[in-house]
């Protein structure tokens, strides 16, 4: 085969191009830190990377959602604890009033206190979180519990539509607790028993009337609504506890997915640097070879 200067030239140039292209690629990979820079670098890998990114995005959203749910439920929980302790107060007052040792004056004082407790319970029913009433169902901009001239003394004006928040893939958590359930409005929680306000109002009337037996008989009703409040409170507590677990596992799976994404699209730095060095050496070798073969000619040896 005849070998001409142009052939040497072309081969040297072709190889230099190839080597410098590889060097550029290795450099790009190392400096960008990404193994997949465009979809054709690794089509299945790119597909995996995009799905993983979208998974991470939804996990982040779920975790924002559960933060929101946790904040809402904690607000509800502290209000509920206050409500439960007020209900305990009511029961204590009823017990005191039911005792024959209690003087009528003391009973009058208890009646006044019961009025005060009712107002406080209504206020707790109107608890706000981030400027929104949390116990009113979908009605969050106006008070769900308002004073009523007739009977019962306080009424519920919210609705019973709920906010469902997705806190984990496919798992919706109900973050709304409506005041009608807390206060057993219309017997929604304990059928056959009046709402909390009516129960307290009746108690107050019995206390004013010094009807000791009536008060004792009324204790059952008080216990019914009190137990209802306790059960709602423990439900909220359980939901909060569950949320905490869900959040932890959400963060866990986010870490796992992020690791997977990094494995899919990021380079192994040590490997990439070794690869870069290899390409660099190859390029230098190609340049050195070019220097050797392109510089010789018969012309140098002819006199």
């Amino acid at each position, binding site marked *: *085969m*005849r*070998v*001409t*200067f*142009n*052939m040497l030239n*072309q*081969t040297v140039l*072709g190889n230099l191009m190839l080597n410098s292209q590889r060097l550029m690629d290795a450099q790009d990979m190392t400096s960008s830190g990404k193994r*997949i820079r*465009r*979809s*054709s*670098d690794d*089509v*299945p890998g*790119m*597909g995996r*990377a*995009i*799905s993983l*990114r*979208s998974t991470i*995005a*939804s996990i*982040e*959203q779920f975790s*924002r*959602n559960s933060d*929101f*749910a946790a904040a809402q439920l904690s607000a509800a929980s502290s209000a509920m604890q206050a409500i439960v302790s007020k209900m305990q107060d009511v029961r204590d007052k009823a017990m005191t009033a039911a005792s024959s040792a209690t003087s009528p004056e003391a009973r009058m004082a208890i009646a006044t206190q019961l009025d005060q407790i009712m107002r406080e319970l209504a206020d707790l029913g109107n608890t706000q979180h981030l400027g*929104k009433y949390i116990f009113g*169902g*979908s009605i*969050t*901009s106006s008070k769900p519990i308002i004073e009523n001239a007739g009977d019962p003394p306080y009424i519920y004006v919210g609705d*019973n*539509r*709920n*906010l*469902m*928040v*997705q806190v984990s893939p496919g798992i*919706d958590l109900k973050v709304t607790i409506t005041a009608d359930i807390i206060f057993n409005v219309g017997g929604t929680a304990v059928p056959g028993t009046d709402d909390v306000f009516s129960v307290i109002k009746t108690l107050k009337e019995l206390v004013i009337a010094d009807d000791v037996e009536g008060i004792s008989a009324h204790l059952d009703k008080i216990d019914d609504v009190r137990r209802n409040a306790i059960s709602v409170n423990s439900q909220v507590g359980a939901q909060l506890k569950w949320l905490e677990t869900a959040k932890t596992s959400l963060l866990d799976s986010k870490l796992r997915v992020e690791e997977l994404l990094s494995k899919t*699209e990021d380079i192994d730095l040590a490997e990439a640097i070794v690869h870069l060095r290899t390409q660099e050496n190859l390029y230098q070798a190609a340049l050195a070879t070019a220097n050797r073969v392109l510089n010789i*000619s*018969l*012309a140098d040896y*002819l006199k």
Partner: protein
Amino acid sequence: MPSFFSLHVAMSGLRAHQYAMSVTAHNIANAGTQGYHRQEARFMPGNPLMGAFSMTGIGIPQLGTGVMVNTIERMRSDYIDSQIRMAGQWAELWSYKDQTLKQIESLVAEPGELGLSNALNRFWNAWEELSVSPESLPSRISVIESGVALSLGFRNLYSSLRQLQARADQDVIDNASRINSIAHEIANLNEQITRSNSGGFQPNDLLDQRDMLLDKLASITQIQVHGAGGSDMFISISGKTLVQGHRVNEVTITPGDHGRSKLVWAIDGTDVQITGGSLLGQLQIRDGVIEEYITKLNTIASTIVDRVNAVHATGITLDGSPAGNFFVPGTNASNMAVAADTLTLGITSPAPDDVYNSLPKMLAAIRDEILVDGETINGAYLGLVSRIGAQSREAASRSQVQNLSLQQLNIQRESISGVSIDEEMLNMVKFQQAYNAAARITSVIDEMIETVISRMGVGGR
């Protein structure tokens, strides 16, 4: 035998080697000329004198009359030339596709923050965000903004693809005029070659030029070259003559379907059948690849528009009136836009539903619905991106393979036709020595004649 006969023989040697030295000089001068084929002076002994000066009486000896340069040969191989043209057209086709697909890939910008997949994720997440506080203004603004960003993403990708398509169309038009201009150049050369041939000359350098033009033409589209490569050569595209002798059958552009340019024969308006070369690459990119991507993109966009609108319209707005369309209805990737604002945005479902944030949740859940060809919307988009990636990868590797084989063939051609400096140097030395020797013979003969003239027959003086 006349005394001066040998002087003529020596003279022929001088002349022939001087001639060959010029060829060597021409070769060296053109060592770097593109398309140049090495030339070689072919020597042939002169016609012998038949027995005119027989001295033996036995047989009839032939006396050589020196040397003459018979031809100047152009070193080439038809076979490799046709191979190069074949490989050249595929190399051009795939490298055109490779470049365009790489551009499309960078437009798609996946995987990355700037791609549509990110805009899609943000859009679905914005609904999710709205679902936890349907009445909050920041959440409503965020839904509208993410919808606007998504529409913009689709519209940008769409118009960039259309621009690439228009550029491919322009490339087709440019190539049509390049075909015509090359055809005319070849026709001109054909005419000059015919004239040279009939004058008995060898138009080597004209043939070089014509071969180079043929390579160029073959890289644009597949051509057939008929005839022995002399003046009787004619070129056709898919059986229809483009150049014959000095006549050219021009191609021209007419408006075709969808306002795209169509390549037809000027003479009868029939389609030019393109079967290879960069032109085929341009047509495939323009009518096949990009069109397919745009169709898919439109399907995805209009699915989002229709589905989001259908769900959104079941909702009610902040002030309790029925929500209308979220996106401008009936739009696709070319004109997608958000129709709703923060007040006409649907935020809840109508009253009988006891979950009042079910509307944004339903909208967020569209991301998991199977809507396009058995895929979710994100899945269908991923399919499109994967298809672009796979096609780009194929084009890149095909282009690399074709270019390597072209490079290999070029090296083979160079091996036959290229100028080797070493070889020319040796030839130079050879011709110089031969010239010197012929000159020496001339002076020896001169001395011989001198002997006859000056030293013989002194008696007559």
